[in-house]
């Protein structure tokens, strides 16, 4: 059990280097995290942040380098050794067992689980533990019934329950609303002020760095390129350290597109999720040519079901989709006729055949029509290859060769390859879901520019994203989804993240008063 009285440790990393064969993931990195500090580790994807953390917690053995805890050298052969020293890790993705209760999850992670568990006394002890904690979650609830914010709190509670005093947090707020994030980080911050906890947080969000962190270290391409006290650094300076001198592709200038009649109109869409619960409630929405409509919301509020309904992967219980005045059902013929294109989230799983080549994956939309289809139903290898060569060049897809399996590509390049396929012909309607999730700055800037390009050339774009900053940057109009319904519609210029966050959390809603035909 946890001993709140125990002091938080300090941590020092000395000259740490990690090589994988010829590749150096981390080179001569040294940093110090003070006792009771709230320290941020910044860097793009692949900069070496997770390698550094994995080496410290004993998940990997560094090629060279030492770890000092409270100024004493420690050697961790495994994560167990690190745990024994009170070091814990909270991952970006939940490690909870979904079909078990909060209490079961907490009891299971203990070092010693009794052979027969006396639930009455365990529940009592857990309630007492929750009373001593800065936040609490219902002990008897199944984890699957908790909201994302509560799950993240439980992940942190689990570490505190185990008496961990040095926490590594890996993008802990990526699934939270801004206000939930503030709450969780604020409470941890308070614990660090009392020297009960030392925190090292990996994050991309400068807002959080500025609000909660004391100190920052920045990694780029495996090297520690800078750092210092947050109060001495501006956001621009930190961003520059992260990205280096590489110029980012600026979003294409937004062409003024004259307002036109809506191209896609959704009316009263209702749909169920996989458990049979209502996932979409009366979704009514219109998107015009040359317009990006953003859909904001905490993940799990119906956004993925909405994309699936538009993609033809989920059946709508009621409601209609009309495109260019004609009722639309997502069959292959209709998709082709109306030129509807989808960039779903995690495209490697949802829009690719991972084992097929890049060129084959790029032809999934049109391998059955000329020129790729030859008379007699055969596929023209040459046409397939020509098309892939053209798209790879035009969209800058980095692939060993067009015949490599698409699963060997990096996340950003899979994203580019699928976007290339979807935008290879002029598109009428583009639905994109979290298009930049997991991509670094430069890849994200590139994908966003492609989306704006499509808008400028007259595509109606529906952009579903969990990244508010992305939505505020790209959208012409912004809708907020909560609990399967659109609860708010606004223009990006006319609002701020805190207001939108309150709609995302369901504490505000336009639905009762001004309703449903927001789109008309």
């Amino acid at each position: 059990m946890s001993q709140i009285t125990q002091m938080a440790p300090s941590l020092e990393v000395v000259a740490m280097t990690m090589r994988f064969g010829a590749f150096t993931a981390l080179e001569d990195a040294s940093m110090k995290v003070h006792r009771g500090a709230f320290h941020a580790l910044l860097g793009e994807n692949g900069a070496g942040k997770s390698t550094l953390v994995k080496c410290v917690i004993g998940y990997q053995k560094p090629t060279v380098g030492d770890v000092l805890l409270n100024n004493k050298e420690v050697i961790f052969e495994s994560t167990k050794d690190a745990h024994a020293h009170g070091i814990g890790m909270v991952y970006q993705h939940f490690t909870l067992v979904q079909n078990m209760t909060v209490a079961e999850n907490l009891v299971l992670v203990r070092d010693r689980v009794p052979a027969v568990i006396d639930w009455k006394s365990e529940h009592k002890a857990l309630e007492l533990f929750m009373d001593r904690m800065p936040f609490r979650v219902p002990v008897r609830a199944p984890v699957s019934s908790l909201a994302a914010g509560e799950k993240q709190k439980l992940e942190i509670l689990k570490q505190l329950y185990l008496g961990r005093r040095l926490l590594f947090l890996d993008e802990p707020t990526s699934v939270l609303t801004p206000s939930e994030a503030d709450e969780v980080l604020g409470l941890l911050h308070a614990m660090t002020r009392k020297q009960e906890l030392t925190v090292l947080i990996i994050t991309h969000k400068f807002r959080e760095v500025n609000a909660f962190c004391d100190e920052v270290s920045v990694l780029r391409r495996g090297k520690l390129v800078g750092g210092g006290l947050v109060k001495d650094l501006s956001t621009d300076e930190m961003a520059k350290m992260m990205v280096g001198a590489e110029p980012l592709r600026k979003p294409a200038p937004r062409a003024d597109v004259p307002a036109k009649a809506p191209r896609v109109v959704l009316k009263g869409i209702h749909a169920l999720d996989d458990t049979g619960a209502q996932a979409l409630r009366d979704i009514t929405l219109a998107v015009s040519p040359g317009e990006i409509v953003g859909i904001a919301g905490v993940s799990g509020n119906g956004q993925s079901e909405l994309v699936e309904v538009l993609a033809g992967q989920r059946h709508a219980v009621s409601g209609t989709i009309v495109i260019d005045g004609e009722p639309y059902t997502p069959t292959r013929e209709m998709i082709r006729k109306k030129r509807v294109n989808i960039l779903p989230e995690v495209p490697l799983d949802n829009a690719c055949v991972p084992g097929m080549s890049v060129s084959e994956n790029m032809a999934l939309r049109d391998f059955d029509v000329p020129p790729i289809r030859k008379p007699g139903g055969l596929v023209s290898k040459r046409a397939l290859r020509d098309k892939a060569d053209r798209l790879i060049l035009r969209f800058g897809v980095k692939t060993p060769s067009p015949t490599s399996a698409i699963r060997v590509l990096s996340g950003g390049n899979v994203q580019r390859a699928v976007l290339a396929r979807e935008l290879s012909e002029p598109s009428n309607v583009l639905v994109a879901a979290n298009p930049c999730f997991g991509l670094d700055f430069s890849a994200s800037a590139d994908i966003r520019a492609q989306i704006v390009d499509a808008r400028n050339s007259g595509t109606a774009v529906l952009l579903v994203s969990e990244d508010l900053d992305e939505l505020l940057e790209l959208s012409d109009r912004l809708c907020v989804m909560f609990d399967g319904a659109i609860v708010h519609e606004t223009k990006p210029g006319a609002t701020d993240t805190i207001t939108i966050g309150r709609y995302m959390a369901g504490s505000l809603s336009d639905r009762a008063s001004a309703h449903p035909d927001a789109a008309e």
Partner: protein
Amino acid sequence: MSEDLGLWGIPIAMLGGMIRVSTPYMFVSLGETITEKSGRINLGLEGTLLIGAVSAYGVSYKTGSPWLGVLAAGGCGIVLGIVHAWLCSRPRVSDIAVGIAMMLFGMGLSFFVGKPLIQPEAPQLPAIELASFSEIPAVREALRVNPLFLLGIALAFFLRWAFAATRIGLVLRMAGESKDAARALGYSVERVRMLATMAGGFLSGIGGSFLSLYYPGIWNEGLSSGQGLIAVALVIFARWNPMYCFYASLLYGAAGSLGTALQSAGVDVSPHLLNAAPAALTLAIMIATCSRDRALVGAPRELTVGA
């Protein structure tokens, strides 16, 4: 024999049939529940059931002790469980394919070693008279139960408790819900699944011994008539809940005894048609519970039949 009871004879005969026929379903489905909770599916239990039946019959015949036969059946079930678990733990092996192979292997092997056992009569398991007070022979007959039936009920209650309140139960469920979570806590998922598959095999073997040593109490090649397969399907309808497994087994027992019950009451229906009742029930439940929009509730997330 029960003409004097009129139509009352049918429910009484069905009650008796339910108690007799449900026992193998109970053992196999509870065993499969343990295996599936650990995140592995064993479709080979039809084969285990037959191996259990033939080994129990053989051992009982040779030693004269039916209870030794029951133990031998459980032991053979463990061995088949080990083979299944070991094959499934190899890389790129599908537990569905191994299960089907193991089912065919078990059936073939039991027919092969069982050839000389079709004629001789082995000592049978004893029964407990629960209704010795009754004057009506049909009631006495219906409530004559085998100790294994009572053991099966106790097992269902025990498993419900063990899944919720023992370390072994929680670790088993965790292995079936999230391999990564279990590994992160230092448990060997393969070991948990090996033990769970062995436990499933043990119980299925015992289920088989009931077939050959109590009801119908003979050995022949058509003995199990797919009960092992139906019991595996039953685990899915029962949503991996041991108590629901128990109720569903009783339901299947009742359906399975419909034919004999109607015959004993003098209703003339083709027995072959009525013997199809459990299969028809399986189809009916599947159609009633399936959905194109919904995933299965309660399915262990590591299981290949899940969502």
